């Protein structure tokens, strides 16, 4: 917690030097922020490998990361193709689910009555497991991408709804007073105040959703699909092909991570006013 650097009696430390020091520090931090996650993932792989090797776990129970890597490299075409399908489903689900959640949250924040009526419905519907919704979805949408996207969207919806409702309400009451004095319309209050106030909550929700939508797409594929990581997981499970199963899981984890990183970068781009301090 020691904020004071060691005393330094250089008579005139120039702006340029300080600026260079600041930039160097920023670069160091940026590098750290990029390298440490890699360290974490590598550490996870090593831990995984150590458990497999140390406890002498047989490959059909859990394969070693090396074997999984081999499998990934061997079947990369197949895996990447499936990954693409799942990624597309997850992406569309992400967009749809979050848009819907933000929309509904926006309605809720404008009408407490609608919120009190419809939030319990959202809670109830969110509590229905996918298996129960699946037959109806297949019936309505068939076996294409649509039901998978829908399931991914449903999985994203609820967390974003809850967080966004709260975020849209987390306005500074003083600024709300200002908007009122300016006779801002609800739309203006929404777009100029609420949306910005909601950003921290919204991005928190989007990070959650980024991770969830991939799961949603995979679970969605379990209602009937020949393509996608989810189908591959089922296939591998059915065949007790643990290396392939784990390869598919690694792929889905990778996809989740990718989504997460994109959202984090997006947030950094959008929320730039709180950069300092």
């Amino acid at each position, binding site marked *: 917690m020691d904020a004071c650097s060691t005393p330094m009696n250089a008579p005139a430390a120039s702006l340029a030097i300080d600026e260079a020091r600041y930039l160097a520090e920023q670069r160091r931090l940026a590098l750290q922020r990029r390298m440490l996650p890699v360290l974490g993932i590598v550490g996870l792989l090593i831990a995984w490998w150590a458990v497999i090797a140390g406890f002498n776990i047989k490959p059909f129970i859990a394969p070693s990361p090396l074997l999984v890597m081999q499998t990934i490299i061997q079947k990369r075409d197949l895996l990447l193709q499936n990954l693409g399908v799942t990624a597309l489903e997850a992406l569309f689900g992400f967009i749809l689910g979050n848009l819907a959640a933000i929309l509904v949250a926006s309605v809720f924040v404008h009408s407490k009555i609608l919120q009190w009526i419809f939030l319990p419905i959202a809670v109830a519907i969110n509590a229905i497991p996918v298996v129960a919704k699946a*037959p109806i979805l297949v019936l309505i949408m068939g076996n294409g991408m649509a039901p998978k996207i829908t399931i991914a969207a449903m999985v994203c919806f609820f967390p974003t709804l809850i967080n966004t409702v709260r975020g849209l309400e987390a306005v500074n009451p003083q600024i709300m007073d200002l908007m009122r004095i300016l006779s801002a319309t609800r739309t203006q209050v929404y777009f100029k105040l609420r949306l910005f106030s909601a950003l921290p909550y919204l991005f928190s929700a989007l990070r959650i959703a980024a991770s969830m939508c991939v799961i949603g797409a995979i679970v969605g594929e379990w209602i009937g699909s020949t393509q996608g990581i989810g189908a591959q997981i089922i296939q591998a499970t059915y*065949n007790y092909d643990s290396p392939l199963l784990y390869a598919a899981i690694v792929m889905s984890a990778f996809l989740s991570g990718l989504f997460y990183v994109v959202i984090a970068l997006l947030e950094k781009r959008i929320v730039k006013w709180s950069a300092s301090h």
Partner: protein
Amino acid sequence: TVEALGAEDGLINLQLGYIAGADQIAEVTARALGYFKDEGLTLAIQPGGPSVDGLAVVASGRFEVGEISSSPSIMLATSQGIPIQSFAAGLQRHPYGYFSLKKNPVHTPQDFIGKRVGVAPTGVILLRLLLAKNKIPESQVTIVPIGGDMSPLLIGRVDVVTGWLSNTSSLRALGDERVGLTLWDAGVHLYAWPYYATQSTLQTRPDLLVRFLRATARGWHVCRTQPDRAVDYLMKDYPQLNREDERAALAIKLQCALDDETVANGWGTMNADRWQQQITQFDQLGQFSGHVPTVNEVMTTAILDKTRAVRMAV
């Protein structure tokens, strides 16, 4: 309406109870060789999955034909008043069975006594059928609910697990130590891979089902006579499969699909008495939460009768 969605001319959707793959080798072969086209059909295989067994989808009229893994599903569905009927059986002998290791084997039903048997929740009833059939009190066996995988056997949590003999890939995990006892050998005679359709399809468009069955039967013929070629077609459609495993699996599937019954009545044949037996067994265990279905509700030989020639040629 939902029916309208699936009514495209010449298109026939086969809704599976599970993922699409090796079990559809005959259909895939038939499609590859143009047998469906010969019948004026385009076959679309619609996979199910762990979350959807497809029966409601067919029953609602969305897709025309369904295939499900085991005959009990048909009986349970009709018991609930779902208007579907089985019109052919893919396999005569159910390849589902119980697997144990040589050091603590289950060769015969009597060996179950004192064993811990790991079964998925939906498999419990099949084990109870087996025990009832062999007059073994359920109290003598410990049923351990597990998910669908074999690791509990390998790590010694249970002595017996369940699985499909037809799924060679999955059995590899057990290696040479494997001891198998199929439901069939234990005296429980279920059909596997029964085909079904709604009663309305059976009545209004029987000829669609006839053509479907004819093409499929011709696929089976190729499977029997040129198994390597069939596996080639399978691998082409499902490249993620393992060729050697599927070649071995096909041999087992053929054994299950073609037996004395089919010598007499052709591939796919069904026997009303055997259906009745299954209904009775289920009823005795109190499995019908709806009404107890009659054989005529559960199955029909109408389509079989019209395709006898082709089926006999398999």
